[in-house]
């Protein structure tokens, strides 16, 4: 495969897995948790690097899951101690992120790991860092990891599809019929963490947030059915990835920044023109009913 094809494939995998996880983030009203976790996985990665002295996939994934769960637990704990939910998110993620940045600046400041890379990603280097996979031949490491994570996300979500649906829409009902709501919350947080860390290399921390939230929010405006929303959100993620790449090539600028911007374009189009929840259709609808009322008035 060519260089461009690998980049597009990697970015599409980011779009797909983030799009799917993002749907549940939005339905569970945890969009800002995604922002928090995307920052705190940094400390997981840095710690994993300090302990093992290498930047390998499995170590980073484990570090990220621990950091993600730590974030979720701490936020929950402060909240139960009377701190407002969003203030508690704010305290936890800024603190952990600041510690991560300081560790990078003082302990591991070298070519392997720097904050700029972690924030913005470096998708242009992805195709160079390859590994050998049986049957497939040489595959970039980041792409392989993303494919594995996508597979894991799909398995976990499809295997317990009904449970995810009920816990997301009606947690009280879910608890009453014996679904382990708390356990599922933490499983979901782990899914968010591994998706974030796998996408890290490609698009960086901040752009992960865009990929997680925006395509899902856009698809939320088009449909009321969960299965369609999942498919649409994944598709929007892939479309944004392609669009972002070509915008970046056209303007010769940061690929990850352009991809985040492209998700915004997809959202704005949906926001304006979605048939049921869009601004334009609502406006037209208002106009039509107004018209009809006038006609009715004329008849009477």
């Amino acid at each position, binding site marked *: 495969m060519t260089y461009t094809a690998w980049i597009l494939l990697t970015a599409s995998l980011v779009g797909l897995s983030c799009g799917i996880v993002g749907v549940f983030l939005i339905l569970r009203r945890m969009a800002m948790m995604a922002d928090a976790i995307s920052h705190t996985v940094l400390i997981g990665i840095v710690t994993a690097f300090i302990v093992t002295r290498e930047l390998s996939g499995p170590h980073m994934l484990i570090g990220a899951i621990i950091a993600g769960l730590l974030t979720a637990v701490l936020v929950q704990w402060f909240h139960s101690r009377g701190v407002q939910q*969003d*203030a508690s998110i704010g305290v936890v993620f800024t603190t952990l992120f600041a510690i991560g*940045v300081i560790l990078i600046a003082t302990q591991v400041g070298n070519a392997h790991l720097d904050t700029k890379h972690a924030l913005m990603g470096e998708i242009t280097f992805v195709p160079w860092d390859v590994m050998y996979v049986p049957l497939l031949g040489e595959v970039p490491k980041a792409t392989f990891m993303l494919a594995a994570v996508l597979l894991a996300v799909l398995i976990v979500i499809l295997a317990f599809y009904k449970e995810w649906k009920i816990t997301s829409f009606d947690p009280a009902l879910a608890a009453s019929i014996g679904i382990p709501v708390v356990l599922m919350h933490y499983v979901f947080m782990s899914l968010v963490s591994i998706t974030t860390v796998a996408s890290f290399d490609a698009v960086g921390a*901040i752009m992960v947030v865009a990929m997680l939230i925006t395509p899902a929010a856009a698809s939320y405006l088009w449909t009321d059915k969960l299965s369609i929303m999942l498919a649409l959100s994944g598709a929007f993620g892939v479309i944004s990835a392609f669009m972002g790449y070509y915008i970046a090539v056209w303007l010769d600028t940061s690929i990850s*920044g352009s991809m985040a911007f492209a998700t915004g374009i997809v959202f704005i189009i949906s926001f304006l023109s979605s048939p049921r929840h*869009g601004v334009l259709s609502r406006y037209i609808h208002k106009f039509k009913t107004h018209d009809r009322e006038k006609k009715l008035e004329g008849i009477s």
Partner: protein
Amino acid sequence: MLNSLLSPNTQWVLLSTLILGMAAGMIGCLAYWKRQSLMSDALSHAALPGVVIAFALTGSKNLLVMILGAAASALIGAWMIQWIRTSSRIKEDTAMGMILSVFFGLGIMLLTIVNRTAGGNQSGLDNFIFGQAASMVRKDVFTMLILAVLVILVVSIGFKEWKLFLFDPDFARGLGMNSRLMNTLYMGVLVLVIVIGIQAVGVILMAAMLIIPAVSARYWTQSFKMMVILSAIFGGGAGFVGTLVSTMGKGWPTGPFIVVASSVLFTISLVFGAEKGLLIQALQLRSQKKQHVDVGSQAVISSRISERGSNQ
């Protein structure tokens, strides 16, 4: 360390982060009670494209112009969050997350273009992401000081009005207070603090300066006035200590150190806080238990005595 304290430039930088921390701590209390702590995070990210555009247009690192650019783009972000929230079924947190990441993405796009066209020697712009208070010059410090003092004045002069606006908006409206004006003023001071703070701590960690001192102060008092004062002290202290520590290492970013100093204060408040601290709650729980046990055992004894009495 003493040497760095003595240098006049460092003194000015320390003074400015101190005042900035105080201003941020005060505004943070307003944001806390408006339940908009994370709004500050969204707005500080949303300011990035404005900073870069202002730089690209003027071609120089003029702080005032950049503040104007940052304020404009943060306000556009705030307006879009409001628009998305009110005219679709998307919730506020989702809207904030989107604006935050999409604006930041746009900012990074523009930053890459500007860095390329300016020949790569404008790495100073990167400082807006993590903050580098030490690189500020005297003029920047003056601009920051004036604006921060302005913010502090706005909060302290209208203190009674702010309190009413936050805790009983219906009553405030009944008294004929213009809540729309207050909202605009609130958004105005919030954005002002964010954009002047970006220079020192960067867009990513600015939210911490607003959120953490307010939450820490909450552990010490129930009175809003005391909370604002304490939050200002915590914020100023964290700004001062964090900046001091970051000057001790070469190329150490200021923002993260201020945040960590702030978090240390938060942890102290969490454990020792006089109002809801862990220690005081544990002590209360223990004394309550003791009381219960005492009362319980007394009840058992008295019932036994009465049993014995009835047996006889």
